[in-house]
């Protein structure tokens, strides 16, 4: 905290007092380490990355499609944790351990696909909108207005209902809700950057629009996009899990946390005399999604505070 304050207090042009030989990267790292919560967030996210990468080793796939959870038998009652099933099983005997491990992969794949789609659309529309302005800008902004006039989850539910239930369609639906935010942010950055001296210099040197956008404008607008994306990762995973929970995302048996939680819906009451008999069906996947989202939220907050002090507390 003190590091940030002393930095803010120093005049922008004057030479800042800093440890000898400290580069921008070191400063970032120092600020990052100064907040214990950001370190916790980073540790959680790295943990899930490792789980997602090592999924085939941690939980060996037995089916042709590794994302389909193997199930032994069709007995309807969930079974508690045992050596064979470390986290227990859900109804219809889907293995919770397998589902949680491969669910980490699903979470990353879904979140990254949504971000990639939204960023691609934002790069196309936002650059046209922010760089050229005029009627194109007006049109793009009004379209984002319309999309933002929908409560996000409602629009995704409606899109999935029309397109049909599948993981791909859920990604499309979530991206359809997310792109306006990215486009508006990128447009704002383009507006800020396009009249900077270095862009004028590039133009004076005879660079074309495409070259200016690709080489000079986009690299300078990328940090805010990264911050937004990191703040957004958790929210995307929650939305996807919510779709699966509502029966509109991943199909039954797919390794997805939301889908596993929906399988626990019938078992929260337990049996007579022991109400928490089936605790693991909710707690195991619930904890997985909570930690994943918490990790990204902490990390996103940290990125925002480090890279963009203007945005502090603005969410």
């Amino acid at each position, binding site marked *: 905290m003190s590091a940030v304050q002393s930095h803010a207090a120093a005049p922008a042009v004057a030479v800042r007092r800093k440890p000898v030989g400290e580069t921008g990267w070191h400063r970032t790292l120092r600020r990052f380490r100064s907040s214990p919560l950001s370190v916790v967030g980073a540790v959680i996210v790295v943990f899930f990355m490792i789980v997602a990468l090592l999924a085939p080793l941690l939980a060996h796939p037995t089916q042709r499609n590794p994302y389909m959870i193997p199930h032994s038998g069709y007995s309807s009652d969930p079974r508690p944790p045992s050596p064979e099933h470390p986290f227990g099983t859900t109804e219809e005997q889907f293995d919770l351990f397998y589902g949680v491990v491969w669910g980490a992969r699903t979470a990353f794949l879904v979140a990254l696909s949504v971000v990639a789609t939204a960023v691609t659309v934002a790069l196309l529309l936002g650059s046209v909108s922010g760089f050229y302005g005029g009627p194109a800008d007006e049109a793009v902004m009004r379209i984002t207005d319309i999309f933002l006039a*929908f409560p996000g989850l409602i629009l995704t539910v409606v899109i999935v209902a029309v397109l049909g239930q599948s993981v791909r369609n859920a990604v499309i639906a979530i991206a359809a809700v997310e792109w306006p935010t990215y486009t508006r942010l990128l447009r704002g950055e383009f507006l800020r950057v396009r009249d900077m001296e270095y862009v004028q210099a590039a133009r004076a040197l005879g660079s074309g629009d495409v070259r200016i956008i690709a080489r000079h404008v986009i690299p300078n607008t990328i940090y805010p996009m990264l911050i937004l994306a990191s703040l957004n990762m958790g929210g995307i995973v929650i939305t996807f899990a919510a779709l699966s929970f509502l029966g509109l995302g991943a199909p039954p048996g797919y390794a997805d946390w939301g889908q596993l939680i929906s399988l626990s819906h019938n078992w929260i009451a337990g049996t007579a005399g022991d109400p928490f008999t089936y605790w693991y069906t909710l707690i195991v996947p*619930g904890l997985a999604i909570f930690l994943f*989202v918490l990790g990204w939220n902490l990390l996103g907050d940290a990125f925002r505070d480090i890279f963009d002090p203007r945005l502090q507390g603005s969410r």
Partner: protein
Amino acid sequence: MTTFILRRLLLLPLVAVGVSALIFLLLQFLTPAMRASLYIHDPKQLNALPDLIRKYHLDQPVYVQYWAWLIQVAHGDLGWSETAREPVAAAIRGYFPATLELAIYSFGWILVFGIWLGTQSAVHKDRFLDQVSRFTSISGASLPTFVWGLLLLMIFYGHFGWFPPGRLSLSGDLYVRGGAFHPYTGLMTIDALLNGNLGLFWDAAKHLVLPVATLTYYLTAVLVRITRSSMLETLRTDYVRTARAKGLGEHVVVDKHARRNALIPVITLGSLLFVGLLSGVVITETVFNYPGIGQWGVNASQQLDIPAVTGFALIFAGLLVISNLFADVMYAIVDPRIRLQ
């Protein structure tokens, strides 16, 4: 001021047209025959499919279709909902009060808790209360509504048996469906009191506790965050220092000088809360099997009941547009500086 409100009001139909166009475009993914079948609620009508296509102009150019569809919607003809087994407009009228009841009770708690906790958290920055409220808000933002809801259900229904899911118990439901009960408002707790039936009131209230708690937790987390950062900013301003310098008591400074100004951005973000409430309602109603508009919309989506989905989307988008307008107008009323622009 009046110009500002008028200008916002003029934008309203524009956004409404845009929203309806978006829904209409989504419907274009379906074939004309499928879209015609949306108006069918009786097998006998199948023979009349070509007539239906003609009646609803489904073989005409897109702009003609859109116009015809808009006229239908304006007349309240949204088609037939298979999941509700009644016309969409009637279904919305039937389900909406339940959702409204849930929203009204939640919103009160959210405002009280959110603003109080956010203010206290900012005033006692980095102290115990602040740490608690920050932990609450970051975990509230990370815990999906449905996990939280199921957890509450597991403890307070599964273990204690206090608060069952649904909207009424079986006997309460039978009584409401019987002739003696008169639904005045559609809000069950109010109607029970108006009918002078205290037992029914407790029944309805008991079923509201968990869904309201679920919605409240998540949205309080959002509001605490907004209030806290806005309050922190205000407490650093010069006029707050002046107020303290002239010897005003701390709670006068906090309540009168700081909080009133800190709440201005909170009002604009109030529409954000409303969005959260609408999305939260969809999940909460599904978790608690609460027969509101959100649960109906989800069921309709699962069963490809497209007219219902369309009506559901239109009503929620309309609500959001109105709440945005309300927030803008409130903003102009509360903050005189807006009028200059």
